[in-house]
């Protein structure tokens, strides 16, 4: 009986040890912070892969959207507040595509540093509200901003 108990104890210790190892490895992995999602800053710094598809994410810069009236070609700039990259795309854009909208593009990096996108996806944010509320918020914000600038 005693050996059986001891065996159980050994088994429990072994299991706990392995689970601990597992957790430690998982934490190391999490610290590595792998992402397949590149911000414009990372792309500008040359951290994005050269001849491979990757995803880039950011906000569409204000006034940067240029549409070719004849074809579906469109070009716009993505920013993350610090840096910008130009994206070229040919195809139908999602309804949510607009300035200052969070966008994810999938594409390759051209030699001149622009992204040739094969897919453009709009990421809607977590905020839901009626249009009037949004307008009110916007005007409030604008007044706050101009107020701040005056000071």
């Amino acid at each position, binding site marked *: 009986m005693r*050996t*059986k108990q001891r*065996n159980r104890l*050994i*088994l429990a210790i*072994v*299991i706990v*040890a*392995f*689970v601990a*190892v*597992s*957790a*430690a*490895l*998982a934490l*190391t*992995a999490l610290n*590595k*912070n*792998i992402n*397949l999602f590149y911000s414009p800053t990372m792309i500008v710094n040359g951290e994005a*892969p050269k001849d*491979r598809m990757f995803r880039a994410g950011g906000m569409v810069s204000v006034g940067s959207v240029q549409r070719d009236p004849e074809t579906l070609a469109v070009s716009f700039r993505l920013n993350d507040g610090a840096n910008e990259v130009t994206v070229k795309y040919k195809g139908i854009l999602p309804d949510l595509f607009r300035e200052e909208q969070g966008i994810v593009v999938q594409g390759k990096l051209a030699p001149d540093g622009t992204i040739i996108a094969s897919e453009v996806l709009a990421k809607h944010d977590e905020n839901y509200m009626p249009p009037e509320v949004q307008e009110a918020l916007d005007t409030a914000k604008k007044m706050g901003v101009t107020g701040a600038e005056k000071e």
Partner: protein
Amino acid sequence: MSEAKLGVAFFTLLRRDLMLAYRHRAQMMNPLLFFVIVVSLFPLGLDPEPELLHTIAPGVIWVAALLAAMLSLDTMFRSDFEDGSLEQLLLTPHPLPLLVLAKILAHWLVSGLPLLLLAPLLGMLLNLGSEGLFPLLATLLLGTPILSLIGSIGVALTVGLRGGGVLLSLLILPLFIPVLIFAAAAVGNAEAGIDITGQLAFLGSLLAAAFALAPLATAAALRISLN
């Protein structure tokens, strides 16, 4: 009963399974053959353009490895179940998870390890670059034992059932998805020159967790299936 005896039981079972595998070596070769054929189907079905093959190589090799593992897993407890030695195993005084671990280890030595040896060859067939070869071997080394470990749970749950093979894939393949994702991503990233220690650490973490927990779950499942 001392640890020495436990060790003896473990190694006896391991040796027995390896001997059996050796005796039925033609049968044991089949999943490997399947692995090679599946991988070589892709260049035939797709455009055999080196660039394309190069991109899909990690994913294809890993998917084929999963499918081959499914095939070989099916036989893990089958013959033992049919000749009644599985029931004998449950009746021994030794802790069942340990015995199960011996069987899992035998299964990996017979089915997982050969995949590792074949992988460089297939990598070349699929035009996988030399930067990707070592990561491919590393992920296979870490990943295939996870397949044997997690797979054993599914096999134990379906061992007495008719048509267990298809059911087994339905139960097990969703659980294999994390392995597939990390392994294929690691190989792909290595080719692109990106650091892959994160993925390898995660695979190692999965392996450690599966090593600790899967034998317990398999033992419990065997008890249920055979009562």
